[in-house]
């Protein structure tokens, strides 16, 4: 059978579009006012828009479900685009774990998973029994060691539970980067100040999900308001399933939970 065209009537449509571009844009301006208000986009986290943001009452959680992560790397791409993250530095990344038949573990994360995982690893020389992917991002600790060591108060935990960086105050000493047990911080090569994942604070404040959660096609990343008893994260956290955190012995009390985390993950 012959090949099927991907877009029927593509040429006609394209022609109409070109002619009417001006009209469409013009009519858009009537629909979406100039300064296109993002508030016109339906909110993804219910209950945030239209209310005052009370710092002390917020309680968000982030859950990563290892069992459905397919290693597509959309999250890494979305994060990089949202913040223009420079090459070689990562606010979030995805790791691939390979387990052989004699229980040896091999881990890799080529470019943090930015290109996804397109080819299997060929350098092991032995058959692989099992593979899984682990996304990593800021654990948003409740007792953050990065905040503890910052000499000038440039990184802090806000009253609404987000660990943020004041890039106007940071002196670039890199102490917080040494102190983070999860290696989620880095020194931006251009601003020469510390930077890290912020759970997209600027998006959450406008009722949108973090960029990585928004793009995840399988629901491996979940984000929600624990004050909302109908949210998925609330149901998971208050349910009987096993949720774990990374490097629990560090004593940082992370707010990032993993569902289905394997024992080989550090």
């Amino acid at each position, binding site marked *: 059978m012959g090949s099927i065209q991907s877009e029927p009537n593509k040429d006609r449509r394209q022609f109409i579009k070109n002619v009417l571009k001006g009209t469409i844009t013009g009519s858009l301006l009537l629909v979406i006012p100039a300064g296109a208000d993002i508030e016109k986009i339906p909110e993804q986290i219910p209950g945030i828009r239209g209310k005052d943001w009370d710092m002390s009452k917020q309680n968000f959680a982030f859950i990563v479900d290892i069992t459905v992560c397919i290693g597509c790397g959309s999250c890494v791409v979305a994060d990089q685009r949202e913040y223009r993250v420079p090459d070689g*530095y990562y606010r979030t990344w995805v790791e691939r774990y390979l387990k052989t038949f004699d229980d040896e573990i091999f881990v890799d994360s080529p470019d943090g998973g930015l290109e996804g995982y397109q080819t299997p690893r060929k350098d092991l020389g032995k058959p692989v029994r099992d593979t899984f992917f682990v996304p990593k991002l800021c654990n948003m600790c409740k007792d953050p060691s990065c905040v503890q*060591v910052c000499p000038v108060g440039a990184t802090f935990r806000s009253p609404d539970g987000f660990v943020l960086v004041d890039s106007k105050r940071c*002196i670039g000493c890199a102490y917080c980067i040494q102190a983070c047990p*999860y290696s989620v911080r880095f020194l931006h090569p251009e*601003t020469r100040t510390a930077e890290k994942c912020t759970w997209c604070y600027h998006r959450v404040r406008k009722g949108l999900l973090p960029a990585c959660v928004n793009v995840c096609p399988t629901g491996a990343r979940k984000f929600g308001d624990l004050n909302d008893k109908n949210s998925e994260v609330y149901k998971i956290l208050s349910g009987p399933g096993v949720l774990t955190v990374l490097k629990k012995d560090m004593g940082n009390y992370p707010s990032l939970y993993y569902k289905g985390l394997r024992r080989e993950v550090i």
Partner: protein
Amino acid sequence: MGLSNFVFPNDVHVHWSMMIALYPYITGIVAGAFIVSSLYHVFKVEALKPISRFSLLFALAFLAFATLPLLLHLGRPERNFNIMLTPSASSAMAGFGYIYTLYGVVLVLEILFIYRPTLVELKHQTKGLMKLIYTLLTFASDDLSQRSLDLDHKIIKFLAAIGIPMACVLHGYVGFIFGGVKANPTWSTPLMPVIFLLSACVSGIAGIILVYTLIRAFRHQPIDMDCLRTTTNYLAGFFIIDFAFEMLEVFSHSYLRTWYHHSVNALQMGPLFNSFWVWQVGILSVLPLLLLGYLCLTRVKDSIYRILAPLVGLMLLMQVMFMRWNVVIGGQLMSKSHRGFTVFHPEWFDREGIVAVLIVMSLPLILLFILSKIFPFWLEDEKEPAG
């Protein structure tokens, strides 16, 4: 471990480079030199009198440049005053601004008080710019009456006494900067401030021995052998304790065989094998220990002593540098994934590069030379020894 060398993506970069290894080296020398001076001024070790003033100036020369490696390291050096404006009480590093300033004040004041009679005398003997300098340094006061000297004496004792804990804090807090990082297994140990402080004393005393013998030899002046022997004895004492703590750290970890040990062991047997076991421990610790045993416990002729003592001093200066390197840079080579190591490539012409390190290390020596033109190093060069 083995085949899979997995480093967390952000762990590839080594953020604390040679300047951060150099900073504790410099403050360590300051602390050690101050200890030598205080052994005379506070603990009345008479044999050290000849170098009691020299060691203070030595300390000052290095203290003056202690901030330079930090400024060269900071991503935003223009914001460095934030550490004085809003220091965080929970951060060891925040102590830097105030501790450094206060200790600097104490050290400068101690020098000025000890030298005051000499400086007043020199003020009368000089003209022009030098006279102005001496007037400022003596605070325009000529009074050298016994009452005044007694008051000075009390103040000197007070300054020297508080100077000791301040010098310890100035260097000890650096050890705590590393010791307080739980995320890094090579660093987080309560012994870290102790090891840093003891190796600081070692480097200071060793530096004084080396520079003292070199200056005297260069100027064809005699070396006070009693002073040299006593200083070397103290060097040996401090070094034995320092080495004992360094080895205790390694061996207690290897005995306890915790999860941390397996990671740190891979580092010390792998990438750091040469710089730690071969150099820091073997060539630069065990060998100097043997030499110190020979020098301190047997009768050694002066002519041999005058050569071996500065040699040991040089070796121990290198040992302390290697220790700083192994801790600061070596400690960052192991990724927090506990599954791999990154590599460190020292640059030549970087802000934190090799050339910069060499320049920063030579600046204190240049300042020391300048200071020698204002403050006479040796008591026999003055008409009225005092202090």
